[in-house]
């Protein structure tokens, strides 16, 4: 459109003379067009509020904007010169007084003129930072911030871009004293400080649930005032550091001009790393820990003296490596409170108060490894509430808890069935007992044999007894056990332990949940899926009732539950649980996270089992790409798993399968610790791939080795062993060693049915393949019952699809016309094909030498 083009072009000519010269030339002899464009230009320069107010503002019934300044002059004022008091931004905010300035911007008290008169805090991002990227990011973050709504968080009210192109944010203006100053002036008791801290935790939790991380929590960002006779905190600048910084990556503070060293003291170890891109909610937990430390001791984990005298590198090293003194010890030093801060409470009394549980709570927040901090701000708050109401806290002295965890990690029980395993487990129990005893000793010393200690000791002893009971009288050579295999005995004992745990769960649900979870995973290792499902469902329900629907434990437990369902053939249920776990994990940790990616990988596996190969392939390829980016050159076990799964997903392209598996093997060999289970899995798949590629001898060699090693490691009847046997039988079949294949399939079907059930994909697969083998041997009549059973179940397990066409063939060959016609219809085989087959058969029969 001509009018628009001329208008746009005219706008580009700044000077009055230049502009009219252009119009003269462009409009030529069309005075109507010229006057129209001149009108548009004058309207463009007018002050009309059209499209300037938000439509929703209009709807709220706002009065005419006051204090309108000329947009043009506004623009000049903001882009070239510093913002001055009196400047009006967006027709609404009049800058009054500058109250802060940092490297990235300024903070002003501003008067809002509409929709209502009030004072607000306005953060103006420094001109010069306004690259497009920063602005786009800024806008996005601003929108997220507006989702927060909590009485203890200063609201982000508004924001936008000034006419000069500077991003600005409008925040609630908070009156109050910074946290530490308030506590000092109000002479708050330790208890009142803890109460106040709990409020802060809840506010942080609210933001975390909206996906917002503060990143810069410190007492200066928490303003406290008296509301209704109680201290009421307000956290300011939530998520602002990210908005102000603009880009998505964390950058080291030293590179940001204006960030003072003081901020470093609240910074978590992961924030001080140059590569520290992946900040999560636990970063804030760390900062909360430093704040709690300061509330209770009057000083911070790193002595101010040390901060003053050390270089940046040294401070960073300390944040990353040095475990600070416990609050109870630190409070006795000179830098802590001057002794009159808590009124009559002297430092020694304060130290006695802090010693033990409060020490543990603080130290748990300050763990260098964030996996070991509190999961959520809520669980931190809850632990403090536990302390305040004399319930036992969740935090533990670091050393013992470390030992205990290590023990659990060591004992996922995948290798039961051998005397060696028994030794390892008994060793483990002894280890736990030592861990528990140490822990108790430490506690008893610290709690001075209080009643609480007695109670907890009793509980630990009980839990320990239950654990130990699993291993009692499990010697397979013991007559009383009737020579039953160890694995069976173990499963039985675990089952009993599950029941006994019920009584414990009344007293301490959280502790019971953790034990139930361990037992559940052990039961999966023992392939007792029904029991595993029962116990995991139960503990998940308990977790939910504990109000921890999104904790890590929930995610992990949901994952295990999905595995139990998947392995017992209930794939739809498994899929549902996996998707749920994935949702939780994505919300909590984001996509590029080890846990989330592992879950996506499992989802891929689930699709594979459901024969949804395309979806499986897409998701697994994505996972692999992300894992490669995430782990970089540090090869990771998870990548091996993904490669291995992916190799199964590229159906019918066995060359690619083999390539992927060879790559997986390479990665596997680069791992620091040997992972035999995965190694065997890959070797088996490689064997299958070779069979399809016609390398039958190689395939047989690999699979024979896999079977033998599986038998030694997992036992003769473990599903891993059964599955590798099945692969071997297939290779026999391809080698036309029919008798070997037949007897192996028959044996497998029997063993699998005894172990699992007849209605189980593994069992039915063996049955179906037994039928196929009979068919290939030309024993059609014998093949039929097996193929019929497999075919019938193919509705439930799509991998049994193969049975149908073999069955059709057998019916045809046995002359069962009615059945074959019916099946042909069902399978969509056109009638003429049957005819052709018949002709072919008779031709072949005739050609056969008699």
């Amino acid at each position, binding site marked *: 459109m001509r009018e628009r083009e001329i208008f746009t072009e005219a706008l580009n000519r700044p000077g009055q003379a230049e502009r009219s010269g252009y119009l003269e030339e462009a409009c030529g002899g069309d005075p109507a067009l010229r006057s129209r464009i001149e009108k548009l230009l004058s309207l463009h320069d007018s002050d009309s509020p059209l499209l300037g107010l938000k*439509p929703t503002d209009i*709807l709220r*019934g706002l009065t005419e904007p006051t204090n309108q300044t000329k947009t043009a002059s506004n623009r000049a004022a903001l882009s070239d010169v510093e913002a001055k008091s009196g400047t009006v931004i967006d027709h609404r905010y009049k800058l009054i007084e500058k109250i802060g300035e940092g490297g990235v911007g300024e903070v002003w008290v501003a008067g809002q003129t509409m929709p209502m008169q009030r004072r607000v805090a306005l953060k103006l991002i420094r001109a010069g930072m306004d690259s497009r990227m920063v602005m786009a990011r800024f806008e996005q973050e601003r929108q997220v911030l507006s989702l927060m709504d909590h009485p203890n968080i200063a609201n982000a009210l508004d924001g936008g871009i000034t006419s000069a192109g500077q991003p600005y944010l409008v925040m609630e203006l908070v009156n109050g004293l910074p946290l530490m100053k308030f506590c000092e002036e109000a002479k708050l008791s330790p208890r009142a400080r803890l109460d106040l801290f709990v409020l802060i935790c809840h506010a942080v939790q609210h933001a975390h649930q909206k996906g917002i991380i503060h990143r810069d929590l410190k007492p200066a960002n928490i303003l406290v005032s008296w509301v209704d006779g109680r201290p009421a905190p307000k956290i300011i600048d939530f998520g602002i550091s990210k908005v102000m910084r603009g880009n998505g990556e964390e950058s080291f503070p030293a590179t940001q001009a204006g960030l003072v060293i003081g901020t470093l003291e609240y910074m978590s170890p992961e924030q001080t790393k140059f590569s520290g891109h992946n900040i999560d909610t636990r970063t804030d937990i760390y900062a909360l820990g430093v704040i709690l430390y300061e509330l209770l001791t009057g000083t911070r984990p790193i002595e101010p003296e040390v901060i003053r005298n050390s270089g940046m590198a040294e401070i960073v090293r300390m944040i990353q490596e040095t475990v600070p003194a416990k609050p109870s010890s630190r409070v006795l030093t000179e830098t802590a409170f001057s002794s009159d801060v808590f009124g009559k409470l002297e430092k020694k009394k304060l130290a006695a108060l802090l010693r033990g549980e409060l020490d543990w709570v603080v130290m748990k927040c300050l763990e260098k490894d964030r996996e070991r901090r509190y999961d959520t701000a809520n669980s931190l708050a809850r632990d403090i509430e536990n302390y305040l109401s004399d319930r036992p806290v969740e935090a533990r002295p670091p050393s013992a808890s470390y030992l205990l965890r290590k023990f659990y990690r060591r004992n996922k029980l995948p290798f039961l069935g051998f005397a060696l395993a028994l030794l390892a487990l008994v060793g483990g129990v002894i280890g736990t007992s030592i861990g528990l005893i140490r822990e108790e000793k430490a506690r008893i010393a610290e709690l001075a044999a209080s009643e609480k200690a007695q109670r907890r000791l009793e509980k630990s002893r009980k839990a320990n007894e239950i654990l130990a009971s699993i291993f009692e009288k499990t010697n397979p050579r013991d007559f009383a056990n009737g020579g039953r295999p160890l694995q069976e005995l173990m499963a039985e004992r675990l089952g009993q332990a599950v029941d006994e745990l019920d009584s414990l769960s009344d007293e301490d649900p959280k502790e019971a949940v953790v034990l139930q979870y361990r037992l559940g995973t052990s039961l999966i290792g023992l392939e007792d899926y029904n029991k595993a499902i029962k116990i995991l469902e139960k503990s998940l329900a308990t977790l939910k009732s504990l109000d921890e629907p999104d904790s890590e434990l929930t995610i992990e437990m949901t994952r295990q539950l999905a595995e139990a369902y998947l392995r017992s053939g209930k794939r739809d249920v498994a899929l549902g649980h996996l998707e749920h776990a994935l*949702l939780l994990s994505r919300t909590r940790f984001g996509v590029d996270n080890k846990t989330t990616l592992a879950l996506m990988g499992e989802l891929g596996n689930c699709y594979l089992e459901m024969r949804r190969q395309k979806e499986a392939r897409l998701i697994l390829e994505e996972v692999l790409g992300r894992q490669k980016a995430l782990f970089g050159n540090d090869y990771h076990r998870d990548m091996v798993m993904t490669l291995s799964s992916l190799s199964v997903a590229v159906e019918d392209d066995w060359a690619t399968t083999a390539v992927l598996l060879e790559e997986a093997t390479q990665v596997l060999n680069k791992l620091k610790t040997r992972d035999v289970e995965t190694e065997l899995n890959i070797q088996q798949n490689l064997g299958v791939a070779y069979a399809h590629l016609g390398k039958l001898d190689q395939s047989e060699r690999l699979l024979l080795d896999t079977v033998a090693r599986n038998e030694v490691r997992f036992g003769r009847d473990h599903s891993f062993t059964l599955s590798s046997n099945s692969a071997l039988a297939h290779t026999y079949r391809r080698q036309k060693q029919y008798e070997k294949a037949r007897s192996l399939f028959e044996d497998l079907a029997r063993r699998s049915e005894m172990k699992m059930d007849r209605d189980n994909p593994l069992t039915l697969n063996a049955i179906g393949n037994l039928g196929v083998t009979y068919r290939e041997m030309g024993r059609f009549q014998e093949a039929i019952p097996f193929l019929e059973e497999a075919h019938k179940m193919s509705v439930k397990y799509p991998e049994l699809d193969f049975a149908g066409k073999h069955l059709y063939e057998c019916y045809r060959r046995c002359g069962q016309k009615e059945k074959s016609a019916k099946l042909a219809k069902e399978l969509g085989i056109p009638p003429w094909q049957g005819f052709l087959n018949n002709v072919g058969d008779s031709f072949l029969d005739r050609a056969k030498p008699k």
Partner: protein
Amino acid sequence: MFVRLVMPEFTQLLVNAGSGDETAIEHLFAQVYGDLRLLATQRLAQEAPGNTLQPTALVHEVYLRLIKSTNQILRPEDLPGDSRSRFFAAAANAMRRILIESARRKKRDKHGGTHQRIALDPDQVAEPEMAEELLALDEALTILASIEPQIAELVTLRYFGGLTLKESAVILGIAPRTADAHWAYARAWLLAEIQQSAENSEF
């Protein structure tokens, strides 16, 4: 792309709309419109009088709600480009319709309709004159759409949808500079149009 995998209705709908499926586009609009309206009601009920409603925040929240109802988390930026554009276009148009409807109702009230004020009504327009301005803008915008559809769409996205100029430009597939020029033109054009119709109605 991962998006195509675990994808129940809403995301599927988005993807279909993104590939130009008319039914899906209509359905998407209906979905967004319903939720946006509900949300605006709730918001106005909760907020202290005088606080502003942020169209952008509303639109984002609607997005989150729709996504949540499908039990998965996809941020708008995870979506393929076309679907994202469709979503924001639908949201901006839904916002426009909600606001215009309420402005109309307000105008009716002024001309002797019921005078009962319900505090929680999102359609509450305090100043009828404002409502008229909004209606005038809507009419002018409709005329603009018949001449310069893309420019009218830009105004809808930015003004009613609360998107930034840059975001709107991305969605329309034009350069930010072009969007800037279009915006200036649209504003002048609309002003001219509104003045014109005001003059006409005085005679």
